[in-house]
């Protein structure tokens, strides 16, 4: 049970918890948090795969990939958060499926 395997397992756990959160939570903000968790999990697995033991040197490519991944996830999160505010503002619910708002427009069957 060396530490690398342990880290892989914790990465996998993070991914699973993220996925579960994405599926289960009803509030959009939580879903975005969960999505970030999932990507951190994946990054963890990539980096663990990359770090070498004593005789094998560190593989820089996953590092670059993770860096790109982090930047990508921050951009998508930013757009997602803005969208959440817009959704909240127009439908007054931060949930995905709509509730009949008192008076303001019928249910959009999106």
């Amino acid at each position, binding site marked *: 049970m060396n*530490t*690398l*395997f*342990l*880290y*892989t*397992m914790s990465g*996998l*756990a993070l991914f*699973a*918890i993220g*996925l*579960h959160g994405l*599926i*289960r939570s*009803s*509030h959009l*903000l*939580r879903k975005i*948090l969960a999505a*970030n*968790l999932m990507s*951190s999990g994946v990054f963890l697995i990539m*980096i663990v*795969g*990359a770090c*070498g033991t004593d005789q*094998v*040197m*560190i*593989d*820089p*490519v*996953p*590092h*670059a*990939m993770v*860096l*790109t991944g*982090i*930047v*990508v*996830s*921050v*951009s*998508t*999160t*930013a*757009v997602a*958060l*803005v969208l959440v*505010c*817009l959704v909240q*503002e*127009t439908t*007054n*619910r*931060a*949930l995905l499926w*709509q509730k009949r708002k008192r008076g303001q427009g019928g249910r959009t069957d999106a």
Partner: protein
Amino acid sequence: MMDVMGFFDIVLALALPWLGWRLLASSDLFRAVVLFISLGLLMSLTWVRLQAPDVALAEAAIGAGLTGALFLSALRRLERLSESERRLEHAGKREEDETIPPEKRRRAKPVAYVLSLFLLVVFVLLLGWSLGQTPGAKGGLGPAVAGQMGQSGVQSQVTAVLLNFRGYDTLLEMMVLFLAALGVWSLTRVRQTQQGEVPGPVLATLVRLLVPLMIIVAGYLVWIGSSRAGGAFQGGAVLAAAGVLLLLANVTVVRQVPAGLLRWALVLGPLLFLLTAVACMGGGGNLLEYPGQSAGVWILFIESATAVSIGVTLAALYAGGRPPAPSAPEKDNEEGPGSGVDKGGKA
């Protein structure tokens, strides 16, 4: 050989998923965001343990810092939008969903969740087993990168990969960042703030002290990137932090930045990167094939430009909307029926 570091690794490896679980299970959104930020920091600690300094820096600055700030400002806006919603949130009762009659909803929901839970467990077991089976990939492209380091023009392997060997990825990644800014600007507009808000004394002094320091650190990070951990992203992130501080302090100079200049700043990084890539082709080489030995110089030039752009973009993302129309009195008619989005970032 349960030495201290080994023990530390175990604690760390267990803490991460536990923190993740706590984060999602927490009833209060604010608690969740705070937990998320702490998870980010722990994550950067992990990267350090796994000998990935560049990633640790980026994670700390962008992963934990900036994303956390984004979440907080979004939370602020959500609260302002729905005071009542907040109370409901407190009661922790899941909101009733009229579209599906209550008794039916009871039955449909749990079935799906139980099933998804079961499948999740199977998925984790499967993946865990298969991950356990296959030995590590013996350094993957590591040796190839080491072999080519000579021509890469930089010492740090990560920077070499990022900007030379797989420079095209980074170019596209810059495009992603630019796209995010574009998206945020297209969706909302930042509200015009009242002039009168003056930052508290503590914040004012903090800004005065820290901002110049941050700028220097960012410059250093960009410079050192070629040899040791650092680089455009990390430098950019620090710059962004400075920007966020200025926005928080509602420093007037930030407000008066002309829109044109802001757009050019956003575009600067990706544009220069693209132009240099094409310029390389001029000399008969392929795209992004730095001519001769001057790879290092080109890389540095690109890094500095991109660092600036990254900083400005991330700050703009934090601002959460395109700059308000300078002259026109603030009549918010542009975004649909709802009330204007409140100015983000006000402490």
